[in-house]
């Protein structure tokens, strides 16, 4: 394989289920060693794309290559080089933690001895070596997630696919997980992940695409996307319930752009504090106000007119 050729290459990639178009022709490349993200709300087509990339869902249109191979004909060879962390852990509840990994390794034709050794090494990596003989059921959500990540690494994959790796986890468990994923990235594993959390995308992704309704609406490194699509700061104003929409005329002309959401009004400006002073000067004082740096959520709002997490 040519070293310049991307590990994953999609051109006009489509997925249809009957009449429903989940993915409507998207292009992207993922290069070796890179950490690449799909950001978008539920139903944007992220998971459908991931399943096609994982070679478990037939491509309905366009072109998809992994390692230069076509999933339609070389699915098995592709899957042998992938690690998959599905949205639901799908751990084998009938087996204990270590056996879950050992058996999974066997699916890749790794010998028993090797598989057992690899399982122990990976349980150490995800800091669960003391849980090796535990059943799956009593583990916390974060621990199950770590077992799933260890399982996905059994075959020393070149690409690790993570579908919403931290959805449903508490903040502490998320940070533990991010730390492990960051180490993997340092070891040279290519990460491909989907998320609807902006902080996760900013933490983990070198480059990402924003998806909405089956299409890619923007692409680039997180910082660049923010720089290009949103002013530096955001002023968040909260008015009494139901009064947000009435503020429009009073706020007109403040900042570069405004968004009225059901629970607050966002004012985009390079200088948030200055914008707030102007709001007070006009007598439209809110119940509370907050100035923050603009984030990927603002980019998403800008591009689609909707928030990411409803």
């Amino acid at each position: 394989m040519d070293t310049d050729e991307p590990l994953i290459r999609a051109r006009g990639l489509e997925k249809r289920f009957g009449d429903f178009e989940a993915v409507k022709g998207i292009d992207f490349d993922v290069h070796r060693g890179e950490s690449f993200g799909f950001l978008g709300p539920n139903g944007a087509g992220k998971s459908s794309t991931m399943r096609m990339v994982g070679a478990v869902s037939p491509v309905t249109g366009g072109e998809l290559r992994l390692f230069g191979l076509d999933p339609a004909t070389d699915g098995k060879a592709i899957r042998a080089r992938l690690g998959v962390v599905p949205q639901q852990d799908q751990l084998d509840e009938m087996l204990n933690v270590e056996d879950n990994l050992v058996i999974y390794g066997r699916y890749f034709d790794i010998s028993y001895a090797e598989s057992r050794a690899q399982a122990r090494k990976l349980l150490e990596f995800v800091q669960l070596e003391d849980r090796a003989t535990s059943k799956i059921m009593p583990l916390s959500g974060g621990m199950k997630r770590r077992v799933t990540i260890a399982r996905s690494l059994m075959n020393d994959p070149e690409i690790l696919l993570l579908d919403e790796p931290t959805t449903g986890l508490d903040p502490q468990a998320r940070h533990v997980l991010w730390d492990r994923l960051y180490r993997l990235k340092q070891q040279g594993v290519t990460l491909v992940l989907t998320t609807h959390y902006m902080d996760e995308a900013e933490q983990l992704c070198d480059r990402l695409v924003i998806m909405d309704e089956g299409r890619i609406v923007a692409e680039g490194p997180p910082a660049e996307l923010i720089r290009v699509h949103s002013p530096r700061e955001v002023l968040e104003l909260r008015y009494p319930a139901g009064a947000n929409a009435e503020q429009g005329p009073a706020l007109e002309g403040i900042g570069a752009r405004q968004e009225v959401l059901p629970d607050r009004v966002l004012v985009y400006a390079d200088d948030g504090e200055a914008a707030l002073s102007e709001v007070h000067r006009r007598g439209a004082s809110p119940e509370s106000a907050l100035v923050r740096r603009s984030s990927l959520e603002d980019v998403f709002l800008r591009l689609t007119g909707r928030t990411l997490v409803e």
Partner: protein
Amino acid sequence: MTTASTRPRATNAQRAFPLTAMLLPPALRQAHRPFRILERHWFVGKTSFIWIILGGFFEPFFFLISTDLGFGGLIDDIEVGGTLVPYVEFVAPALLAASAMNGAMYETMNVFFRINFDKTYESMLATPVTVGDVVIGDVLWATLRGAIYSVAFMAVMVAMGMTSSWWGVLMLPGSIVIALAFGGVGLTAATMLRSIEDFEYVPTASLPLFLFSATFFPVSAYGDLGWIVNLSPLYHGVALLRALNLGQLSWGLLGHVAVLLAIAVVGVSVAARRIERTLLT
């Protein structure tokens, strides 16, 4: 991290039997590692295996004792291919066939949970394991369970003096073919169940096979409708084992074997198609 090696290769089946390979649906031709599935089931089942084996012994024991004691004094010897045999000896090989059937059928019912609740298959299919591996592995596992039941059953038959020919040893491969056939049927059935409530239909569907496969009374009791038993897959198993137990060998037995094998292939293929359509969308 190191690169896993990838060598796409033709399956053994494709090399050795090009014609068979052509007849098989694609899902089965891709089968590569069915034994990995057996390993997984063994990991899960090894601790409770002893109960399966004990159950395999006691169930036929209860059935045969009950039939022998209860009906022995009430029913005359029955004629099978020109030989008169005591009623319990008439029933025993038929119950052996039913036991192989039930062993395989019950085991494959677990497939419903693997597809719908445990998602066992989904995580397997994310690896180089294919749908063909999964269905063949599951059918082999079910067959293994059926075979264990059969060995236990045959041991009881020998202990109770219900065997009369050394050809009876062939009842073991015979039972394996029966288990294979009903493993295929059970697998397809498991993919058709929509909810746990649907399990209620399974015994209702297998009871007529159990009762009307010349199991408890000879085909002659059906009068002119005797041909009907040929429609029951289990009948072919019953007829096969009954003849083997008495050492009544004939070419016709191969016909029964062929029917059972055909059922196995169709069952496994249909199940593979259905699983593929459910999980690989």
